[in-house]
């Protein structure tokens, strides 16, 4: 079966006063129907440009964007408008019509389609119930909180009965608790309606909570992609490591210059108290710099950052010991430094 989204050799650059900026450099990937696909990158990595190329809000300079087996770049204006109706999009700043109440906001895409007013209102109310906002039908966006606005935006997208929902930093303006509730709503929608979801974010936590697959963007290039577990357990590129390791353990690198390792273990190996056993087996303590358990698409994964003893040989033997017990070990001799501490989102 053909993937629902297939991007090939996509390139896009912008002219700015400082010269040409390559926002997307020869990007290729595909997304299968029903996936929740995350695209992660630091600010300026080209995420927003990439997601805007998936519904041609941004027209790529070259390459191919196939959605539902249809090459978007070869469509006429009218055909593209039609195609966009099955590709919903939600935004960081919600982008609701401020002069319309909640119900009429959801009616808007239906008006575009030419659905009659009565029918539109009926359907809009149904979707409002889906997102749990039926009590606010008559409220205006200015009277809602951020999370409520995003729920309305999601209902508005659902009203078009899309096959794909693109989320452009949809939770970046929300607090962590609201972020979690919006993400679970998206996950629920993915499950109930089988809608493919593409999530753009700079936060690893978002990817971990809902995504099945992830692609890592760095300076306009797609440097790595795979299942969330694969990327989380063994990130191959510097950019991926920076995002993943950085997401939980900022500042660890600044503590010492000693040998540091990152270990990842799944449900299986976490039954055994590995760290305790290492300490007992070698008679030398290791220093736990950071530890966390994360939920990766439904199954737990543990992550720790350890400082090994000064003695190089003991350190090597500890790594071997851990690897024998199916723990993924990675040496962090070049822990990302200041790049992390300065990171903020646009």
């Amino acid at each position, binding site marked *: 079966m053909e993937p629902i989204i297939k991007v090939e050799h996509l390139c896009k650059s912008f002219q700015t006063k400082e010269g040409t900026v390559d926002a997307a450099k020869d990007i290729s990937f595909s997304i299968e129907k029903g996936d929740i696909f995350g695209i992660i990158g630091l600010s300026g990595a080209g995420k927003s440009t990439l997601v805007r190329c998936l*519904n041609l809000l941004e027209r790529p300079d070259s390459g191919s964007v196939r959605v539902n087996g249809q090459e978007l770049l070869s469509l006429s204006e009218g055909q593209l408008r039609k195609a*966009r*109706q099955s590709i919903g999009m939600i935004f960081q700043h919600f*982008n609701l019509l401020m*002069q319309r109440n909640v119900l009429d906001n959801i009616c*808007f895409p239906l008006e575009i389609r030419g659905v009659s007013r009565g029918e539109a209102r009926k359907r809009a109310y149904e979707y409002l119930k889906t997102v749990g906002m039926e009590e606010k039908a008559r409220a205006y966006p200015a009277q809602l909180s951020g999370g409520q606005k995003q729920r309305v935006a999601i209902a508005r997208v659902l009203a078009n009965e899309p096959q794909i929902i*693109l989320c452009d930093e949809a939770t970046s303006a929300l607090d962590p608790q609201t972020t979690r509730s919006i993400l679970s709503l998206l996950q629920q929608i993915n499950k109930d309606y089988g809608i493919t979801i593409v999530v753009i974010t700079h936060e690893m936590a978002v990817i971990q909570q809902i995504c099945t697959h992830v692609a890592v963007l760095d300076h306009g290039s797609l440097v790595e992609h795979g299942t969330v577990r694969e990327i989380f357990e063994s990130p191959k590129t510097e950019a991926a490591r920076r995002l993943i390791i950085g997401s939980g353990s900022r500042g660890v690198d600044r503590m010492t210059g000693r040998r540091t390792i990152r270990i990842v273990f799944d449900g299986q190996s976490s039954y055994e108290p590995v760290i305790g056993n290492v300490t007992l087996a070698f008679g030398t303590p290791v220093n736990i710099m950071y530890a966390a358990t994360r939920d990766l698409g439904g199954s737990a994964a543990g992550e720790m950052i350890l400082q090994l003893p000064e003695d190089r040989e003991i350190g090597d033997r500890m790594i071997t010991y851990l690897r024998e017990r199916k723990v993924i070990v990675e040496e962090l001799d070049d822990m990302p430094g200041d790049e992390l501490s300065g990171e903020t989102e646009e």
Partner: protein
Amino acid sequence: MIREFFNQYGPMLWEGTLDTLYMTLVSTFFGYVLGLPIGIILTVTDQDGIHPNKVVYRVLDIIVNLLRSVPFLILLILVIPLTKAIVGKSYGSSATIVPLVIAAAPFIGRMVESSLKEVDRGVIEAAQSMGAGTFTIIFKVLLAEARTSLLVGVTIVTGTILGYSAMAGTVGGGGLGDIAIRFGYYRYQTDIMIVTIVILVALVQVLQAIGMYISQKLDHRKA
């Protein structure tokens, strides 16, 4: 004494007031008939509009600027042939409407353009992502979302046209301006001059209040 004054001049002042209102409101209406499309086209064809078109934007931009820089009194005289062709005569309140509309349209175009440009780019993008076409975006997003600002614009425009209409009095334009010139200036009847000014001020205040009230009523952007 006051009674005597109003017995003598009351009917004339009342008629002048009605003439002024007639000129102002009709000119505002036709000004928008021309100016609203100008403002919309300027917004849509601008560089970051929904249908950028450098040529259309530049041409319209220059025409608007040219018309805006001609002083109203000069315009009033310049368009006399056109006025005669449309209204049949070059004096009186109806005749004043022609230059008023020509002077107001480019000004209105700019007001509309600035109102429409206040609409959040993201909301337009959201409409595009739903498959909305250009006309849907113009009517259901741009004009609908900017309505408060557009109505404030109407209020400002009405006030400005009211002022211009009084100016037209100098060349026999009719209305309160005409009365003020003929009686207050040529015949040194300061009392009439003052009364016309008071009426003009009151008219501006009332129009302003009505405009602001409606635009506030229609604004849902505040919690």
